């Protein structure tokens, strides 16, 4: 079987609409929307956000599986961790599919982009876990923590508890990534530097034009969800507490808030 497969080799049902990120951005710009993901002030924010996460969980499951397959010579414990992550992500995919149903959406309502898979395209397990487990799963911590707070404001225990359950797993994935980035690069500072640089690229890719803020610095806007109107963050915030639990340092978190992306080793 081929290693480092291209994104279009991921299996999807024929009725799924797959769209390159550039085309999605173009569609958004033509409608006078920001080029990135659905923003909190948009009517579809909650549906689109949950859909993006659900598609991300699928690709995360596939990514962990491919990391397991692509690096057969990696330590057995590393392989066990990747296998465990596949299992976790498959549960997350199911949870988010049910949440989509809950908010009046469904898998396939919005297009799926290839952007997350681009973060798997590197032939070194240390880089792979730096990018996916520390970069992407770190971003997931931010997004999930924000969703939990939004659900609390909505008085919705279904979303709050479901996402909290998933967030607990994501924190372990980040820790796993930090552990293996260090272990796999022990005694090889060049390799560590390469892994950090790969993560930096991913942090920058998802920096949303420097539009992320601290929780305290986020402006609030009104959003109608179902029959309720709640005040929510207007920006994607950095989940300091969750990231600290996951093992990020204060310095790394500060850098993200400042939009610098670059992460320090620890």
């Amino acid at each position: 079987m081929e290693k480092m497969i291209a994104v279009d080799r991921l299996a999807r049902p024929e009725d799924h609409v797959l769209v390159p990120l550039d085309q999605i951005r173009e569609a958004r710009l033509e409608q006078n929307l920001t080029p990135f993901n659905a923003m909190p002030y948009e009517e579809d924010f909650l549906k689109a956000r949950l859909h993006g996460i659900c598609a991300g969980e699928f690709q995360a499951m596939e990514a962990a599986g491919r990391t397991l397959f692509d690096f057969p010579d990696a330590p057995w414990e590393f392989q066990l961790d990747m296998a465990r992550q596949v299992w976790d992500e498959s549960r997350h995919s199911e949870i988010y599919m049910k949440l989509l149903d809950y908010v009046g959406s469904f898998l396939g309502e919005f297009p799926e982009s290839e952007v997350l898979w681009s973060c798997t395209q590197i032939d070194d397990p240390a880089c792979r876990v730096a990018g996916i487990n520390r970069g992407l799963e770190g971003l997931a911590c931010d997004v999930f923590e924000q969703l939990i707070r939004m659900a609390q404001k909505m008085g919705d225990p279904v979303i709050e508890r479901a996402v909290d359950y998933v967030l607990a797993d994501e924190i372990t994935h980040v820790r796993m990534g930090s552990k293996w980035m260090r272990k796999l690069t022990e005694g090889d500072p060049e390799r560590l530097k390469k892994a950090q640089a790969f993560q930096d690229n991913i942090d920058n890719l998802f920096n949303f034009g420097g539009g992320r803020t601290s929780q305290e610095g986020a402006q609030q806007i009104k959003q109608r969800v179902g029959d309720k109107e709640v005040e929510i963050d207007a920006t994607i915030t950095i989940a300091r507490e969750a990231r600290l639990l996951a093992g990020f340092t204060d310095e790394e978190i500060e850098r993200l808030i400042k939009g610098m992306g670059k992460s320090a080793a620890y």
Partner: protein
Amino acid sequence: MPDLGNRANVMGPQPIGPVKQPAPEMIEAIDRFLSALMCGKKDDALAMTLEQARDRVSQIADSLKPRGYDSSQILGKARVAEHYFVKAKLTGGKGAPFTLQFRIGPEGGQWTVRDVSDLSNVRSAWTK
């Protein structure tokens, strides 16, 4: 995932919002566009295409004309705000089935095509 059926009879949390239904006018516009391509009516297809996609639509219409497809199927549609990406397959012609994906959006009370890709010889729109 299995459909839970009649939700009023199902225990547990119920949906908090309705599923957004596509506008009937859009479905009608999709049918018109696909019919124009199948029947080789390039001008009709171009009439509902914005300038930015006219060259691609023109190429596709020209390539399809000799094949004479007689049926179309919408495989899937996914939206970005009010614009829909539509994946469709044309069948029943002299050649192999033809798969295309296009974006359609509302403008001045009309639904117009803004982007189109030929997917017949690629695995998906993700293929570089």
